[in-house]
């Protein structure tokens, strides 16, 4: 949910994350209410400032920026957080709306078990403390796409708190060095989504879609600057950032704007701002009504959410009625940081290569399948998967799952290379053939195209002999001690073999013949 969001900070930026929430929203130009349609999980990170200033320029005061993120991410579930109606991407507007979703009088929320499990799993993955008891609250404001007039969220006692996530920041000359960083997570909360408003300015109409959520991720960033050692500055909130690129731009802009404002004797208002994508700047949303009071109160229709672990699980409890944290922990897949560490240790891979392997969906599995089936060295496999294979994918904008080359085919190809059956350039040629999806195995391609290395020592010696005879001048150059002349001879022999001979072998023969 939130994890992919947090892996962005890779330009040597050094801000502290304050809060990170999960959930999503499609509403732009909404009032200050941070609301989102449909189901959402929230997480957030500690508010404490990290005194990590941006690098001061010459002659400037040293400023420190404090940034907190509220990330809204949709939970992958079949039905909504509080109703049985389906969640489906790009369904026709208002086609997936239950009576509860429409807030018909008398309807009541019923918590979706799958969403709770997802929230617990997210909490565990982010090293959070899972609250055995959490509560739901109502957050009130009037907006056309909020049919109940309130949103059900977890304000007072959320499902998970106090987590952390280690991520890598690229640094160094070529951004090739990865520095591990930690972000603290304040809380993860389950939150209902609002609907989606579609404004028709021409007819001055607003259309409401109560289907809610469509897989979008939304981030609100809280930003302030201060001098280290002094109290925190007044913060602004930049709302509805829906891409990591814009998030970074908005934060950069807002930090600089605040610094400029303060250095010119201005002051920062505690306000909500929006990010203008084309102009690349943030603007005050000028909320007419001033500061909203959400009038939080406990949601009376949902009892406290109680979770169990192996020790607190009541005897004879119906597994359908209880959620066992330990059981979810067991189903937790290996976390990316652990996997990366293993890759580095097991295969001697560079840390940045492990990041690349994990960042591309399916790539790690592809890599592991190749490793399983080939005798080739892991380093060779890494190089082929990350350079050749990934290069072809990127070039054609394909996902790993759409690749024409299977892990087995690549493994077979690497075996041929490893056993010196083919040369590395022949291997590239075979790979190119494999990409054409003609259903041939590497072995078939090699024999059809006669790409095998010449293993016949006698024949190769004969060839070398012929080449030497045909180029006495070059032989002379070699004997005079010109080292590049040997390479020329090797090239000539290889050409004669249609690149099928191993240059190392050729070199050995030539050197022997010239008694070097």
């Amino acid at each position, binding site marked *: 949910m939130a994890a992919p969001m947090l892996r962005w900070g890779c330009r040597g930026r050094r801000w502290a994350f304050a809060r990170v929430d999960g959930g999503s929203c499609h509403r732009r130009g909404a009032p200050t209410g941070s609301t989102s349609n449909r189901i959402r999980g929230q997480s957030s990170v500690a508010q404490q400032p990290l005194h990590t200033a941006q690098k001061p320029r010459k002659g400037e005061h040293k400023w420190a920026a404090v940034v907190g993120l509220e990330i809204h991410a949709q939970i992958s579930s079949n039905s909504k957080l509080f109703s049985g109606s389906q969640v489906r991407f790009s369904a026709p507007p208002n086609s997936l709306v239950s009576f509860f979703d429409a807030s*018909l*009088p008398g309807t*009541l929320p019923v918590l979706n078990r799958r969403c709770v499990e997802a929230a617990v799993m997210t909490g565990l993955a982010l090293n959070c403390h899972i609250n055995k008891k959490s509560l739901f609250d109502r957050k*009130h404001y*009037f907006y*056309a796409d909020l049919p109940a007039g*309130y949103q059900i969220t977890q304000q007072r006692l959320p499902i998970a708190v106090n987590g952390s996530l280690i991520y890598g920041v690229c640094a160094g000359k070529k951004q090739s060095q990865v520095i591990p960083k930690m972000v603290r997570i304040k809380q993860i909360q389950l939150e209902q989504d609002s609907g989606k408003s579609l404004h028709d300015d021409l007819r001055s109409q607003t259309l*409401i879609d109560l289907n809610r959520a469509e897989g979008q991720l939304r981030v609100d960033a809280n930003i302030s600057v201060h001098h280290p050692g002094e109290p925190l500055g007044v913060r602004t909130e930049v709302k509805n950032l829906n891409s990591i690129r814009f998030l970074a731009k908005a934060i950069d802009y807002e930090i600089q704007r605040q610094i400029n404002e303060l250095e010119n004797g201005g002051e920062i208002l505690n306000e909500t701002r929006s990010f203008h994508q084309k102009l690349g700047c943030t603007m005050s949303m000028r909320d007419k009504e001033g500061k909203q009071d959400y*009038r939080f109160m406990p949601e009376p229709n949902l009892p406290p959410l109680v979770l169990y672990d192996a020790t607190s699980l009541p005897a004879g409890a119906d597994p359908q009625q209880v959620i066992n944290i330990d059981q979810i922990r067991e189903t937790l897949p290996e976390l990316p940081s652990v996997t990366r560490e293993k890759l580095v240790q097991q295969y001697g891979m560079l840390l940045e290569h492990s990041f690349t392997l994990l960042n591309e969906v399916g790539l790690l599995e592809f890599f592991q399948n190749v490793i399983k089936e080939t005798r080739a060295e892991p380093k060779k496999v890494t190089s082929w998967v990350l350079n050749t294979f990934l290069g072809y994918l990127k070039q054609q904008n394909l996902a790993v799952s759409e690749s024409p080359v299977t892990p087995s085919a690549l493994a077979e190809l690497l075996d041929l290379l490893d056993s010196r059956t083919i040369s590395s350039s022949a291997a590239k040629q075979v790979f190119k053939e494999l990409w054409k999806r003609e259903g041939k195995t590497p072995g078939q391609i090699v024999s059809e195209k006669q790409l095998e290395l010449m293993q016949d020592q006698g024949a190769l010696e004969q060839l070398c002999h012929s080449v030497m005879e045909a180029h006495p001048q070059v032989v002379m150059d070699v004997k005079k001690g010109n080292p590049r002349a040997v390479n020329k001879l090797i090239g000539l022999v290889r050409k004669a073999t249609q690149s099928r001979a191993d240059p190392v072998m050729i070199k050995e023969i030539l050197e022997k013949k010239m008694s070097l």
Partner: protein
Amino acid sequence: MLGRTLREVSAALKQGQITPTELCQKCLSLIKKTKFLNAYITVSEEVALKQAEESEKRYKNGQSLGDLDGIPIAVKDNFSTSGIETTCASNMLKGYIPPYNATVVQKLLDQGALLMGKTNLDEFAMGSGSTDGVFGPVKNPWSYSKQYREKRKQNPHSKNEDSDWLITGGSSGGSAAAVSAFTCYAALGSDTGGSTRNPAAHCGLVGFKPSYGLVSRHGLIPLVNSMDVPGILTRCVDDAAIVLGALAGPDPRDSTTVHDPINKPFMLPSLADVSKLCIGIPKEYLVPELSSEVQSLWSKAADLFESEGAKVIEVSLPHTSYSIVCYHVLCTSEVASNMARFDGLQYGHRCDIDVSTEAMYAATRREGFNDVVRGRILSGNYFLLKENYENYFVKAQKVRRLIANDFVNVFNSGVDVLLTPTTLSEAVPYLEFIKEDNRTRSSQDDIFTQAVNMAGLPAVSIPVALSNQGLPIGLQFIGRAFCDQQLLTVAKWFEKQVMHVLCKKGEKEKHYKRKKITCHLTIHKSEGPVVSSHSMT
């Protein structure tokens, strides 16, 4: 036939003495005759006749669905009914036709009950008189009883007959009037602070408030979610138990319903012996405003238990006096929240103003809600403001806990059931009632009933006797949480005793003279016959 109890008419249906259609038509006819009571907002004649027809088929085929098959019932107009307008007696929901049935409505229909119509109430159930709905006040059928009319004639001050009519109490006054006027055999009310028990007492009915969590609220348009329960109005305790049996149980659509298995059906044993019972008399309920008649009946009832061998003790519920003010904060806060959805966008009333969404909201809500509702919304929003939340809402919640603990302590001390008045007095005339505003009336009228909702306990009002004015008076029993069956069993025993004992006036006086006065309650002479069917003029 119409004056019978549900159980009796159910037997008549089973024996073929009457068919569901005949019974339905009789009720419909009486509904028309008693239209002046204003008990019903909507009479679902066609639906009822269709249901009666189907019920009749089942009886003919020997496939009756049980005690409720073919029984005419009415439902308060704050329960969602599929395809039938549901207004909450508010302009805001005029014309709103829900697409679904409340769980309790569905359960009654599944048992074969006939839905005669939707009954009148105070707007969104906010009131204690059934006088503050957009469709006008409900008139108490007892206003037109022989007993009351005769007493009024003796009073030289009584003016023309029609101005003397009495309120039903509320907010489920329409449901109470409907059962009391014999237009149906049972009705659903809702009970947030006494809204079922209060009109039951004023209309001479059994009014039962189940434990919170025993009966689903899904489809009940909420007043205070944490206190609302569907209530049952019937002519006797056994009937209430039959209806409860049909309604009780967990509902996947209401997460506050309780999953622990409850004994079903709610068959009530006939208690032969009360000697093992301990009845608590809360001393805080003896308030100066309590009418002497009610006080007298209360003390007689206590004596009755004692004379039959029960242990009757005075108990204390020390936080009772804070209940009303605490309720005011919690109720208005939830009201402010619950009413937020009525914005004119999706359903119900919408004003003509369209300059902006905000202007539309404001005008819609101004036109849609009455002063009482708007006043509570304003108060509630004030209490929920960030700066006030701790001082009001949180404090009120703490007080609520203290009130609930009062009951826990009393029940832990060995008390089985508490015996209290239901109301301060008998029903008052409408003209008298409206001299005070809704808020004053609600806080006065709920004082004996409202703490029970804070604690989520089951409680039942039982008619005890007629007052000097010839009007019914009820007493309330309060039970342990989820001991609804025990509570009704005691109530049933008491009901039988008052029928038996209070009817024999001479004996009764002797009987009471023998007893020692308990709990500082004064005993007065008994005032009249126990409630029996009254005749309509």
